[in-house]
C-alpha cells in the first residue's frame, strides 16, 4: 500500500487531527443509531392492552372460614384466605415478634377476615403451598414454599427460610361487603 494515492496524499498534507466535520458526522450518526435503539428496546415493555388489563374482580361470598381461593391478577396468582378467628389472633399477636420484614397485621388486611396476597414467594418466584387443606402450611400456619423452604405466617409474613420479604399485598378495594377489585 506504500505507493497508493492515499499514502502520497497523507504524507504530503498530514492528517488533520481535530476534524470538526468528521466528528460531527460521526456524532450525528451515532446519536441517530442510538435513537433507533430505544424504540426497539421499549417495544419489549408491556403493551397498551397489557397495561389496561390490570384489574380483576371477584366475590368472597362463597369462601368458607379456614379455606381460600386463588384468583388471577395480571397473570399472577392471588391468594384470598378467609381466616379463622384463631388465625387472626395469632397474626395480631405476632405483630410484636421478631420479624424479618416488620409489618402489622392491620396494615396487611383491610378486613381481618380476608387476607389477600400475591401468591408468589418473594425469594425466587415459586408459588407457596397452603391454599388447599391437604397442603403443608409451614411452621407458622400460613404458607410454605417448597422450592427453598420459606415459611410464612397467617398474615403472609416471612418467618423462616431464604425469602427476604413478606408476601406482597396487592392494591385492592372492597366494592361491597363481598366484591373485591384488585388493581
Amino acid at each position, binding site marked *: *500500500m506504500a505507493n497508493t494515492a492515499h499514502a502520497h496524499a497523507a504524507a504530503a498534507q498530514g492528517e488533520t487531527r481535530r476534524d470538526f466535520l468528521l466528528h460531527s*458526522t460521526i456524532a450525528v450518526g451515532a446519536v441517530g443509531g442510538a435513537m433507533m435503539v430505544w424504540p426497539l428496546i421499549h417495544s419489549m415493555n408491556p403493551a397498551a*392492552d397489557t397495561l389496561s388489563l390490570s384489574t380483576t374482580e371477584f366475590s368472597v361470598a362463597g369462601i368458607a372460614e379456614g379455606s381460600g381461593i386463588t384468583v388471577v391478577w395480571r397473570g399472577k396468582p392471588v391468594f384470598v384466605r378467609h381466616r379463622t378467628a384463631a388465625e387472626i389472633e395469632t397474626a395480631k399477636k405476632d405483630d410484636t415478634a421478631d420479624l424479618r420484614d416488620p409489618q402489622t397485621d392491620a396494615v396487611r388486611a383491610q378486613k381481618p377476615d380476608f387476607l389477600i396476597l400475591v401468591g408468589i414467594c418473594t425469594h425466587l418466584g415459586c408459588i407457596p403451598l397452603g391454599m388447599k387443606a391437604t397442603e403443608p402450611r409451614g411452621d407458622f400456619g400460613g404458607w410454605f414454599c417448597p422450592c427453598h423452604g420459606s415459611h410464612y405466617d397467617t398474615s403472609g409474613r416471612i418467618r423462616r427460610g431464604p425469602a427476604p420479604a413478606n408476601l406482597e399485598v396487592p392494591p385492592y378495594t372492597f366494592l361491597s361487603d363481598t366484591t373485591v377489585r384488585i388493581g
Partner: protein
Amino acid sequence: MTEKSRLLKAWEWHEQRLPIGHWLDHSLGSKYPAPKNLNYWWNFGSLALFMLVLMIITGVFLAMNYTAHTSMAFDSVERIMRDVNNGWLIRYMHANGASFFFIVVYIHIFRGLYYGSYKPPREVLWWMGVIIYLLMMATAFMGYVLPWGQMSFWGATVITNLFSAIPGVGDAIVTLLWGGFSVDNPTLNRFFALHYLLPFVIVGVVVLHVWALHIPGSNNPLGIEAAPADKIPFFPYYYAKDAVGLGVFLVVMFAVVFWLPNAMGHPLNYEKANPLVTPPHIVPEWYYLPFYAILRAIPDKLLGVIAMFGSILILFVLPWLDRHPVRSATFRPIFKIFFWVFLANGIMLGWCGSQLAEGLPLILSRVGTFWYFFHFIVLLPLLSWVETPKPLPASISQPVLSPAMKPAE
C-alpha cells in the same frame, strides 16, 4: 500509565489472541484497497448490507410480538400496530424495508450488469449474489404470508401451487410444502420458522460474497484492472462516500415509512385471510412482478413455471453467455443500448405483471418474455463475437489526467 495507553494495551493483548480488529481492517477497512474511481452506483452493496441488518433487527423484535397461528396471526399484527410500544414503527420499517432492500439489490444487480461485474475473474462472486437474490425472494415471500391477510393467503396458495406443475411428483411436493391439503396452520408455522432462519443463511452467503469479492477486488466503472497506484483504502474513503449515499437513501426510505407506509403494500392484506373467497385480482409484491408476468405469458402450466424459474436461473450462466472481453458498457456502445432496452423490458414486464393477464398486457408480456430470453441466449453471445469496443484507457488514471501530468512509470 494513562487511561488511553492502558486501553490500547488491553486491545493489543486481545488482538494477539483473537485478531478481530486486524481481520476487519483487512476485509472492510484501511487494508482493503479499492479502485479510486468507483462511482455512486457502487454504494448499493454496502446499502444492501445495511438493509439486511435493519431487516434482521426489526424482524427479531417483531417476532417477539407475533403469533404464528392462523387464528391469531392477523390479530397479533394489529396488536403490534396498536398496542405494542412503537410496534407500528417497527412493523412499517420492516414491511417497507423489504421493498427498499429489493430496490437496493436491483440497483446493485443492474450496476453489475452494466459494468460487466459478472465477468472473469468474478464469476463465483456473481453466483453468490444470485444465490442471495434467490434466498431474498424466498424469505420475502414467506414474510409476506405471516400477517395472514387476504393477499398473504392467496399469494401463498398461488406460489406453492407452482410446484404442482412438476410432472409426477408435483402434487406430492405441494402437499409436503403445505403440511396439509390446503394452505393452513402448518404452512403458516413452517413459513414463520423458515422466514426467521433464511436471513441468517443470507448472512452466511453474504460472507462468501464478500470473500469472493476480496480475491480479485472490486470491479470499477472502466472495467479495466486497477493498478495498485489507482487504489485507495476502503476506510476512510469509501466509508465517507457510502455514508453520503446512506444518508440520501435513509431520507427517501423514512419519507415512505412515515408518510406512505402502505403505498407499496396491497390494501387487501388488511383483510383477514379467508380461504373461501379469492380476491378478484391477485398480485404479488412489486419485486416479483416481472417474473409473475413471465409465468403468465406462457399458456402452458409447466412451461410457464420453467420459464419463470429459468428467467432467474439463467443469471448463473451469464458469465458464459456474455464472453465479450470488455467489461464496462462504457466502451461497448451496442451492448449499452441493449442494456437499456433490457432494463426497459424488465420494467414493462413488471407493469404487465400488475395487470390482469388479458388483452394488451398479455401480448406485451409475451413480447417481453421473448425479449428477456432473447437478450441472454442470442443477443449477448452474438455481441460477444461481433461488437467492436471503443479504445480502452491504459489505466484508471489516464482518462482523468492530462498527458503532461501523467505519472512516469
